[in-house]
């Protein structure tokens, strides 16, 4: 009898619940956010899915809707969207956060604080720097949601080119918090932004007029945006950070003639030996295109190509590192972190005036090792018919 009373009590307590119940009809699925700043006020643009029944073939409504809110803090701006939105914003499915470069140049910590503090928001969305405003407004073909479109573009770029980077929010926070690391984020911009781009008609032509385009990597120093790398520097950055899955390298073999190698495996390790940074890069790849008359049936020729690429790559990486050191003076390659982890005593000596003295001067040795494993379908050279 007593047990039954306990059991009944148990179910009575259960019945008082339901505070957190949110039906799908009551929530708006937030997939992306863009944060801008206008006159000291945050402008938060939330991209919300407009779910449409799959069997309705004629799409008359936009696949997503942008709600805009302004406020002194980001939370306030979010909540102010309730003046426009009929449903509560549900942000666990957020895929993309675009931070406008104005904020990145001023103070990025306020953005971080909001997102890391809020348990209702996950930390696995991608963070990008927006070079212009209203990037999320664009309606894109193929993927109807521009957020999924951007996400997949980022991931594809990582897989096949490596000129951009995928940085999730917690990695971003880690870079922000760790005193030895500098922030590097991918960027995004809009080409031909006009009113048409926000309409469904934008997707009706094969040559889409308004579209977004991934920019190169944005680099920070002391948590403030310094500038953007070039495409080659971005690839170098990704090679050194081991972010690359697959990329291509193109170098001149003869005058105005080029060979392209597709890198399918790449690993870089940064070490500190005798107060010098040593970077070992191991790559393997395929010859994808060759304009030169090289007989690849011969072993020596393969070696020659490998040697050529190793030297050129070494050269270009060395050049890129020096450029970045001189132009931005930002340690995006985590040299200080490497020293901290592998040579703590040196770190103690240099940490106080790292940027003032050591960073620009420290010697960087680069060893590259490229092995060409397959040579494409053909062995012969496709020669010009003379």
């Amino acid at each position: 009898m007593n047990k039954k009373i306990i059991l009944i009590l148990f179910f009575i307590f259960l019945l008082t619940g339901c505070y957190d119940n949110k039906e799908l009809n009551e929530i708006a699925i937030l997939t992306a956010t863009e944060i801008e700043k206008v006159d000291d006020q945050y402008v938060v643009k939330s991209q919300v899915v407009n779910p449409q029944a799959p069997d309705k073939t004629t799409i008359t409504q936009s696949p997503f809707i942008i709600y805009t809110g302004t406020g002194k803090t980001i939370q306030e701006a979010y909540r102010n969207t309730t003046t426009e939105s009929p449903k509560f914003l549900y942000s666990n499915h957020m895929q993309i956060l675009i931070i406008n470069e104005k904020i990145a140049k001023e103070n990025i910590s306020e953005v971080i604080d909001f997102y890391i503090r809020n348990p209702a928001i996950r930390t696995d969305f991608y963070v990008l720097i927006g070079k212009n405003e209203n990037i999320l407004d664009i309606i894109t073909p193929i993927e109807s949601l521009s957020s999924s479109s951007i996400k997949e573009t980022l991931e594809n770029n990582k897989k096949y080119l490596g000129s951009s980077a995928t940085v999730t929010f917690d990695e971003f926070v880690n870079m922000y918090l760790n005193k030895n690391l500098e922030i590097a984020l991918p960027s995004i911009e809009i080409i031909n932004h006009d009113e048409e781009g926000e309409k469904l008609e934008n997707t009706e032509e094969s040559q889409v007029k308004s579209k977004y385009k991934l920019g190169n990597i944005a680099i920070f120093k002391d948590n403030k945006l310094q500038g953007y790398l070039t495409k080659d520097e971005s690839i170098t950055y990704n090679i050194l950070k081991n972010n690359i899955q697959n990329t291509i390298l193109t170098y001149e073999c003869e005058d105005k003639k080029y060979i392209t190698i597709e890198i399918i495996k790449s690993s870089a390790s940064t070490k500190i030996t005798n107060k010098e940074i040593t970077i070992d890069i191991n790559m393997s790849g395929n010859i994808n295109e060759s304009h030169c008359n090289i007989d690849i049936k011969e072993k020596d020729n393969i070696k020659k190509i490998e040697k050529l690429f190793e030297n050129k790559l070494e050269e270009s990486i060395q050049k890129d590192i020096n450029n970045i050191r001189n132009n931005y003076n930002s340690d995006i390659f985590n040299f200080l972190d490497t020293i901290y982890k592998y040579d703590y005593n040196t770190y103690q000596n240099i940490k106080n005036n790292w940027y003032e003295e050591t960073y620009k001067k420290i010697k960087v040795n680069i060893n590259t090792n490229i092995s060409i494993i397959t040579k494409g379908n053909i062995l012969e050279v496709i020669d010009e018919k003379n």
Partner: protein
Amino acid sequence: MKKINNLELASLIFIQMVTMDLGININIIKNSTGVNGWIVIILSFIIGIIPLSLYMYISNFSTTHPLNEKINILFKKAGKIINFLISIIALVIGIFLLYNSNNFITSQLLYRTSQIMIGIILLTLAIYHNSKGINSITKVSFLLLIINFTLFLLSFFSLSSNINISNLLPVLKENTDNIFLSALKLSSINIFPIIITLSIPKSLVSSENTYNKDIIKTYILAFIVSFLVIFTTYSVLGIELVKIFEYPEYMVLKKVTLWGFLQRIENIVANQWIIGNYIYLTLIIYYLSTNFKSKNNTQKNIFNIIIGILIITITNVIFKNNTIYYNYVQTIFPYITMVLIIFYVIISIKIYIDQKIKH
């Protein structure tokens, strides 16, 4: 009385040693020892060998009696004070456990539900469980442990691709002063409280021969699991993120992806912690109710309900918000449980002396 399988008893001990992994272990060590957390946990389990061996020594004494009766036999009237003190410590552990799980659930799963309600539900279930007897507690703990372990393995193997060993470097360069103290603290909250399990006398266990062996195996397994939790959390998140999150062990589960398509399943995987908290809480109520000698089941249930009300009231009176709670977790809680080592030692010495006198 029905016998209890060795594995079932082992599962209780295992859950006691592993449950504090959520929210308490890392919070105690993360600020004082930095990236050396994984060394601290190894050390803590080495320290824990002492109470463990004393535990096995005590369990051999008068095997038919539970802990409180053993103490009464050994110390006569003074035994009541010792029993009272151990009960108070058990109550404190219960209070911290309840707040920990409440806080975890309300901060991560159900933001708008009130903490008291969640606590009442968990406690009611624990009291109901107690009314079914110790056999039911051990059986359920064994079954839940299997689920726990499966979830743990799934999450660990899924996370193993994200492990970045360099996040654990440099080894023993910074924050080295507090390592030993932190290890003692961890040991005191993870391992010392297993004395509560002595409330299940050895004679109740189905094969007494393998009792010690099974407990040692459990200890090693618990060590591996605790170590892997801290190791994975630190090496996946990095020390900076570990420091800012309230529940870094939970945050790391957000990265779990199974077979490519099951993503964002941290709320399913995190059930391993809630299950652990629940079983531990049930065990504490069981221990406290063994002090209440009554053959009448109704009276015993009423006693359990009073304990439950006590725990939930104290929890809500003491911990008004997270900050107070974390303050207490770091400053008071380990020292309270550390007192248990005194009882281990006193009881063992008394048993030793008594046996010397007899011969």
